[in-house]
């Protein structure tokens, strides 16, 4: 049952990164890809109806972590205190900038909102990467399952590298979305931008393999122990190549889907490589939080899987409905 919830949690985080990832990426890039005024308007319009729903995956994912692994929730959130409060402030600024932008028809106000939206999107992509990097690297947990990382220890070289990678991956994802959804020059610039960003993405992906295995050597063993999990790195690799292939052919929808597959493959590889750890200690330290010692009581987990499954089916149904409504190709409108 703990394993089922580990998979559920990984799936929700993946859904969050794939969905909110494109509006974070588009937000981070639009300061460069779109000129102030009309063009930027189009970018925020494209994500206006859906960004809020996308962000719910983060909240619902947090809820599932709290529900299934309260000890990991408590340890990770208190230990990464500064990072998480920073995420909150960025989410507040970003949400307000997006929602209030069109309330006032004044070029200065709109530029200010665009800047807040763009920079907070960019910072969020980096901060999420840094948080993920710290989880993979492991944190100095004590016997009670808590830790304290001063700010400059949160910003260690490995986590910073993952943060940079997160930014590039989400920027590419966002550029591919704009290449699909935007019109005119923005679309062309986004497609060109995505092709350039792809090289950085591929370079960083390759460059991160060795550091990851050096901070967490058992990751490879855990994948090899369950050979079927090797489909995840394979999925990531296929996705990465497919972005390039479809991007060059100008098949925007497929390129975007390939990017989604790349992200899903990466996150699944990470999850499978950490399993059964959920919040690992530093390499060689015995206090790591695993799905067993961090899980809630088994009765609660069994009951919750029933209503959670129903809730997820409903949520997916709403999303399919909303995306069919708002994401009909721009040219058909």
């Amino acid at each position, binding site marked *: 049952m703990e394993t089922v919830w580990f998979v559920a949690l990984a799936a929700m985080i993946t859904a969050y990164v794939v969905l909110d990832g494109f509006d974070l990426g588009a937000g981070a890039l639009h300061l460069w890809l779109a000129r102030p005024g009309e063009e930027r308007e189009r970018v925020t319009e494209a994500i206006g109806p859906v960004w809020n*729903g996308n962000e719910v995956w983060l909240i619902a994912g947090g809820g599932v972590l709290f529900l299934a692994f309260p000890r990991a929730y408590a340890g990770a959130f208190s230990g990464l205190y500064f990072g998480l409060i920073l995420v909150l402030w960025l989410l507040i600024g970003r949400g307000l900038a997006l929602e209030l932008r069109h309330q006032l028809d004044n070029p200065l106000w709109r530029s200010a909102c665009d800047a807040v939206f763009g920079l907070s999107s960019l910072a969020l992509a980096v901060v999420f990467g840094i948080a993920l990097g710290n989880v993979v690297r492991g944190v100095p947990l004590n016997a009670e399952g808590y830790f304290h990382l001063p700010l400059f220890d949160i910003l260690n070289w490995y986590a910073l590298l993952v943060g940079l990678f997160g930014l590039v991956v989400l920027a590419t994802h966002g550029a591919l979305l704009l290449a699909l959804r935007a019109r005119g020059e923005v679309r062309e610039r986004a497609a060109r931008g995505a092709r350039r960003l792809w090289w950085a993405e591929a370079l960083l992906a390759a460059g991160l393999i060795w550091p990851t295995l050096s901070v967490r050597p058992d990751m490879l063993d855990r994948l090899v122990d369950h050979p079927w999990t090797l489909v995840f790195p394979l999925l990531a690799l296929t996705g990465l190549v497919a972005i390039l292939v479809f991007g060059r052919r100008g098949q925007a929808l497929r390129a975007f889907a390939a990017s989604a597959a790349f992200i899903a493959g990466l996150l699944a590889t990470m999850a499978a490589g950490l399993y059964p750890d959920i919040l690992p200690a530093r390499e060689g330290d015995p206090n790591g939080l695993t799905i067993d010692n961090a899980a809630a009581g088994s009765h609660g987990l069994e009951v919750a899987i029933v209503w959670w499954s129903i809730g997820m089916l409903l949520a997916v149904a709403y999303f399919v409905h909303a995306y069919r409504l708002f994401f009909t190709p721009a040219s058909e409108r």
Partner: protein
Amino acid sequence: LTGSAPGLVIVEMSSEETVDRLQFTLTVTYHYLFPVLTMGLALFIAYFKTVSYAGREGHRFRPLRKTAAERATAESVSRFWTKILAVNFAFGVVTGVPLEFQFGTNWAQFSNFAGGVIGQTLAMEGTFAFFLESVFLGVLLFGAARVSPRVHWLAAVAVFVGAWLSGWFIIATNAWMQHPVGYTADAHGRVQLDSLGDLLTNPWLPWQYLHNMGGAALTGAFVLAALGAFYLLSDRNHAFARSCLRVGVVAALALSIWMIFPTGDRQAHNVFEHQPATFASMEGLFETERGAPLVIVGNPNTRERTLESTIEMPRLLSFLTSRNWTSRVRGLNDIPERRWPDSVPLVYYAYHIMVGLGTIFLVIAGLGAFLLWRGRLYGSRPMLWALLLAFPFTYIANIAGWTTAEVGRQPWVVYGLLRTEHGISPPESVPSGTTLFTLLGFGGLYVLASILFVLFIVRIVARGPEPARAPARAPA
């Protein structure tokens, strides 16, 4: 709590607990200003949208028997309030996310202790309410031109259902913290779910939910009436304003009564039964008494353990709690100080402010409804002024009610199971200076957010509703 001089209560709180509590007080109080209106408005928007979509002349159901002109006004009213709802909802979302996060960042030991139980209701909120609400709000706001009138109406109803479901899961969580049920203790001293049925049928839950949602709807009703009054006083948007006033005043009267009886009465009875120290603090009752009076006005003095300058109704408190004029009500002197709320005066004043305001709302709404019935409401400037000025106080009443519930529960974060000082994040993991910094940050951010909120709401109100137009026809 330690009593160092006779009757003198000194609260000793670690600096970590102090800043954690201040930060949560700030963020949760500020947050609730938005959902209270979202939940209230969602109800009225769904109502107006239903009138617009399903109303016709000669409808069998009388509330939906509407002329084309009335339906056009209802459509214009629902569209206008949807604009306010959109801004309000956005502020509710961005200020709501910090609450869930803070359970982990600032209340890690509480999360670790109680996550096995309240993780259920909090995760249900995200799963069942937030997805529904956020997706259909998108349809309601952006979809008017893309979807059929039926789907647009359904979206309004879905936003209402989502908002009220969200409230239900939060109240279920809070009800468990007030009155824990359906749990067992595990080997590590934490609580785990024993029965989801018991958690969701907590006897504390129904009345707290109905009382709380009544408060949200009452806020919505007074806001509706206030805008109607504002437009009539400014001599503009007459049809729109009358529609808002009519619905607002009638709903405000019904809800003012609902807040006092049955929901307020039953909720107070729950507190009386299960949280004696809280109840005694709310009423400012130090001495245990038979035939205890109901205090209308008075100032609690915890040093002397008396209530000063009182105006009271003899024996009424005993009657209200037990339907018996001479029954016994336990006072604070018979409860160990370690179990007193750490600020008795705050609980006392918050409760009395709520009840006092509730009484005033009943009078205003009653007068307004009377004038409406006599056909004189729209021309009565003093009444319109009273309705316009009343709405901010509904926010104060809601916050005062929550203050009573939350400060009244102290010194427990989970009543009887976990003291608040044991619920904070371990100080070695989150030092108090760190929290102080983020508390200041939230303060600054929220001051800025408040300015923007007021600015944009004032703009929307100044522009006023779009002229009424014929709504799309519902299938006859």
